[in-house]
């Protein structure tokens, strides 16, 4: 038995401005998250390949503990837990923190793998030519490693954009939050969430196009 139901597209047109405000927030939130996550991931990744225990150990602990806990729990911990220690953030800042540490931990592993994928001979050659450890890493290894990391980083960026939806639970006014609001007021839950799904698909499509552009631009021609 299928209940009487039809897709109410006029409602969607009416609430579209609301979705666009939400979409703006989602884009700003994800952009901030990515901007923090990329350097964070790079530093933790560099820490993981470091031979000094002083860098290696904290980086490993950070990476393992952040990768293996759900982002929702981290949102609750930062937003509801930290104020008890006297540290409190606005919902937006809290969102950026959680998104960036969650994605940053995954990116760290990607950076580590791509640094290790650059042949050890290159490091040896540049050391023989008189580069210091850090200079060899900075000018020889990293440019190649980053070019190799980009496709995998792109996956993580798409993941971050999708992950931003759970910040609706701490009332960051992003796309999913506006969708939940509209759905509760109009009762047209199915329409609203289907359309929201396609908006996310669209955003992710644009994100992957941008990443592909960088991938082509930074491609290293290897002999």
């Amino acid at each position, binding site marked *: *038995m*299928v*209940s009487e*139901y039809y897709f109410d597209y006029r409602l969607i047109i009416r609430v579209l401005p609301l979705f666009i405000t939400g979409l703006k927030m989602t884009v700003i939130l994800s952009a901030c998250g990515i901007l923090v996550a990329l350097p964070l991931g790079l530093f933790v990744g560099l820490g993981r390949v470091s031979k000094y225990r002083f860098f290696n150990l904290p980086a490993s602990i950070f990476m*393992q*503990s952040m*990768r*293996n*806990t*759900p*982002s*929702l*729990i*981290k949102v*609750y*911990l930062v937003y*509801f*837990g*930290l104020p*008890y*220690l006297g540290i409190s953030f606005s919902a937006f800042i809290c969102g950026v923190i959680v998104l960036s540490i969650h994605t940053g931990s995954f990116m760290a592993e990607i950076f580590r793998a791509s640094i290790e994928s650059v042949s050890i001979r290159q490091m040896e050659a540049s050391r023989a030519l008189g580069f210091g450890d850090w200079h060899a890493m900075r000018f020889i290894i990293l440019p190649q490693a980053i070019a190799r990391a980009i496709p995998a980083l792109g996956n993580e960026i*798409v993941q971050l954009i*999708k*992950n*931003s*939806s*759970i910040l*609706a*639970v701490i009332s960051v006014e992003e796309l*999913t939050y506006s*969708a*939940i609001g509209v*759905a509760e007021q109009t009762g047209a*839950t*199915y329409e609203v*969430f*289907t359309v*929201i*799904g396609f908006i*996310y*698909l669209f955003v*992710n*499509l644009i994100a992957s196009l941008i990443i592909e552009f960088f991938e082509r631009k930074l491609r290293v021609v290897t002999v």
Partner: protein
Amino acid sequence: MLELLTNNLPYMLKATIATIYLSSGSICCGLLIATFFGVLSVYGARTVRVLIRAYVYYVRGVPELVLFFVVFYLIPLLGIQTSKFVAAFITLSVWTSSFMTEIIRGAILSIPKGQTEAARSLGFTSRKSAQHIILPQTVTRAIPPLINEFAKVIKTTSVASIIGVWELTYAAKEISEITYRPLEIYGVAAVVYFILSYLVFILGEKTARRFAYKA
């Protein structure tokens, strides 16, 4: 602090078991769907392949939370009455099956084409060459990424708490709202998730070693 933990630990333990049920159920179901879809997306008819690609692209491109809402409201529209737990189970199975389909498709495609050609020239039919030559090898290659996927499912069950499924995150929320000790309670929940996810990796590595073939 200690009293808080001893008072609430049994409740959280029960919730952990709910989380384990939910995640293991949807891992099994998702893997079952993904095996069919993964094989079909390589060997199936053209229409089937296109349909599976569309399914994978949609489910992979949509946030988990939105997918939860879609499935949660879609099921009653089809005239079926289910509990929230079953709805969450269906959502997670659908969600993870899309990622696993891609993994299995990738594993099948990673086997060199020469093997199929060799099998065909030795007189295997295309079905037999897939069944006896290609697919047994994909198992080894698919296991490591699948284990990542299993761990991801465990973490994603926490999102189900937003639509009101009673599992670990939901229980932690309940307790922290009663006791006003969110830091400790969510901390414990995070540790439990960490242990579960880590256990999957350890078990996974053992399985991977068992399935690895000796050359």
